[in-house]
């Protein structure tokens, strides 16, 4: 391995610890989450089915669905454009990028690509826009309706996401997510500070909205007129639908992973060792599945809010995030 010159201040150290380990961790994170995301959805659905007294399709059903869809030729509407094929890929890629950038298995930072909060939110927004364009492209009323609702929710969610993570970044003194997680690991008292709790609640609501869960959207409805996320994918089929589903699931899994690491940062890999890497992978998988189970249990008790009260809910979460930021300056 070639050793970096270190001449420039920002030059990357081309060492194992500087580049090899983070890349290995990122690849592992990617593989783990691609495997985990459908499983997470399977667990969520199965838990819900059991709580409702149904047998359920089993936790591997989403995997079988994806495999089936991938083998199928997509059918496109007559007047649709290339967006219908490209959009799903863009969404998938943005979700995969999230899995690479977020501190999930460990906090080793990739050189040159910061896991900065603004980068993360921007990457997520790419997926959001791609999905909205897919919804519009079919030219149906349902798709357009879904896209319009989706963008309304997105416009209300993104500021909350930014602000709540910003509140968390103040104790760390950095907007880099891996550093935030590390800080929480080193000084666990930060986790239960009022600032952190406010920000976590705001973040949790924002993540529920971003991933189209109850009470914002009902992922299991067949009523087109009530749909947000599902309305946009109505015109997609086959491979396109598989990418859309996988992309959305990956986003949910990655965001739950982030939430898990912020609440319970233990188990996260900070210095590269092989057992540490495995421990990190197992820890994050356990956190994601535990949060998924909690989400599913929580959803049983929830109903879908009236569309016009969704902005109120999201404004509430924004207010919490704002309070968190204000409090962090006042307390600090």
């Amino acid at each position, binding site marked *: 391995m070639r050793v970096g010159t270190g001449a420039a201040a920002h030059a990357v150290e081309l060492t194992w610890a500087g580049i090899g380990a983070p890349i290995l961790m990122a690849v592992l994170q990617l593989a783990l989450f691609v495997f985990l995301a459908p499983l997470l959805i399977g667990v969520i659905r199965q838990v*819900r089915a059991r*709580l*409702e*007294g*149904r047998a359920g399709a089993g936790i591997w059903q989403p995997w079988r669905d994806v495999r089936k869809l991938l083998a199928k030729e997509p059918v496109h509407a007559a007047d649709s454009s290339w967006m219908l094929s490209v959009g799903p890929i863009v969404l998938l890629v943005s979700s995969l990028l999230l899995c690479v950038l977020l501190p999930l298995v460990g906090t080793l930072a990739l050189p040159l690509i910061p896991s900065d909060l603004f980068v993360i939110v921007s990457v997520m927004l790419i997926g959001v826009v791609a999905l909205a364009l897919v919804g519009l492209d079919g030219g149906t*009323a*349902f798709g*357009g*309706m879904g896209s319009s*609702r989706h963008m309304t929710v997105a416009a209300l969610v993104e500021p909350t996401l930014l602000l709540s993570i910003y509140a968390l970044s103040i104790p760390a003194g950095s907007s880099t997510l891996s550093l935030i997680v590390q800080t929480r690991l080193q000084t666990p008292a930060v986790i239960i500070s009022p600032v952190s709790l406010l920000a976590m609640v705001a973040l949790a609501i924002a993540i529920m909205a971003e991933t189209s869960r*109850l*009470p914002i959207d*009902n992922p*299991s*409805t*067949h*009523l*087109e*007129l*009530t749909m947000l996320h599902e309305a946009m994918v109505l015109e997609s089929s086959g491979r396109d639908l598989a990418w859309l589903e996988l992309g959305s699931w990956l986003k949910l899994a990655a965001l739950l992973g982030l939430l898990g690491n912020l609440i319970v940062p233990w188990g996260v890999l900070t210095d590269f060792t092989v057992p540490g890497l495995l421990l990190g992978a197992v820890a994050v998988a356990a956190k994601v599945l535990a949060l998924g189970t909690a989400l599913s249990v929580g959803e*049983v008790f*929830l*109903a*879908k*809010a*009236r*569309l*016009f*009260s969704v902005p109120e809910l999201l404004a509430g979460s924004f207010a919490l995030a704002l309070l968190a930021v204000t409090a962090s300056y006042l307390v600090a």
Partner: protein
Amino acid sequence: MTNRDTPDLNSATPGPPIPHAPVPHAPVMPAAPARPEIRVLVRDRLRQEASALLDSGNRLAMIACHDDGDALRVVYSFAGVFPRRQVDLVVPVPYTDAWVPSIADLSYPAGNFERGMRDLYGVRPADHPQPYRLVRHGHWPRGWYPMRRGARVTPRFEPDVESFPFVEVEGPGVYEIAVGPIHAGIIDPGHFRFSVVGETIVRMEARQWYMHRGVERLFEGRRPADGLELAEQVTGDTVVGHSLAYCMAVEAAAGIEVRETDRLLRALLLELERIYNHVSDLGSLANDVGFGIVHSHTQRLRETLLRLNKTVTGQRFLRGGLRIGGARVLSLPDPEVLRGVAADMQEIIAITLGHAIVRDRFTGTAPLSGAQARAIGTLGYVARASGIDADSRRDHPFVDLGPAFHVVTETGGDVLARYRVRAGEFAVSMAVVIDLVARLGEHLGSGTSVDPAVPGTGLAFVEGWRGSICHRVELGAGGVLSRVKIVDPSFFNWPALPVALADTIVPDFPLVNKSFNQSYAGNDL
């Protein structure tokens, strides 16, 4: 913007007095159906007579047209509660000059009956304010009136040349959402066209009438006893309601008396049908706001009830219990099972109404005011949720249901009011059924079955779970069915849906539609 399918309620005059004033429960005399008063009129006298009947508190129950072979005949059946009376206005109409003066301006439902009559019999309602087709599908050949005697049963269908003229709402930001006729989920076909600004519904038009099966025509020429199996299949979810109305209309036509125990048994079957449908819909309403666990439990209870139904008549949807002139069941329902379902359901209703989000979704959603409900002529729980105290079980009783029975009304007219009326009716029906089982003792019905051999005419009202069902039966020579006219309450209630939807938001439509839950099959025969 003209109102083509919906009544113009802003200009509507206060209308006739409420036909059904509230009365305290009194033991009603289970009498044989009142003999209708028949007045044969010339066309010019119709409007005057109809107007007088409507003004004196009678309700238009149906307009039925008949093809007698030598001429057409239109029968306007009115029903009153105080005093209890039935009046048939009979207007002969020659083939060559087939028209009647429209009474659509006197009664909104009359307008729709007239449009249906024009499509099926070719009798033109003169000066009709909404002279558009109703039942006629675009593919029907011109000049083909399927209920005329000479009409070929299956015509050669023609291309649909006149597309359905939906009213286009114009203005900045108005867009259309087209839903159906094929829907997600297993329901009958109907097309809904929403004109929307943002998320607010400016106007909704329903295009229905996709499933004309010629049910009324299929009755013609059958023996009355053979008509029963058809009556059971008018709509799959109202087996007892429609078959009982049919039986009672035949019995009224032939003057058949039914024993009291058999009438009690009929009341029992009717309430069992109401119970399983109310349970199912109370859960579906929660499901439509994403509260799935309630739906799962009501599905469990519905299945329990359907299995109980099977022990009663041998069929899950209660087919086979009724005979003309009697009733017969295999066993009476187990009161313990019913009490268990009632207790579970009370808990489910409490959980549903105690849920803040569900409560918010139900409250104030798509209100139908009492004045609107009255002007449209709504029936059943839709009417009762808007404060109209009408129930054929009390207004046209065939048996005394006992002290447990009372009519549930609400005044809100919104989804919550419709939910509460049905929740209340569920509890009342449960109490009535448990009481009826005790009153019947070991009696399983006489099983009397009569096939009348005399001509006659009979009209009957039965409060099915959706509302008042009305059948009018004419028996020809030897008792053969010459005409059966069926009116499901959905025929009266469907037009109320677009009216209630004004200013409702699009994502609330499925919930509102479910709260009305009108029948497609019963509407389009």
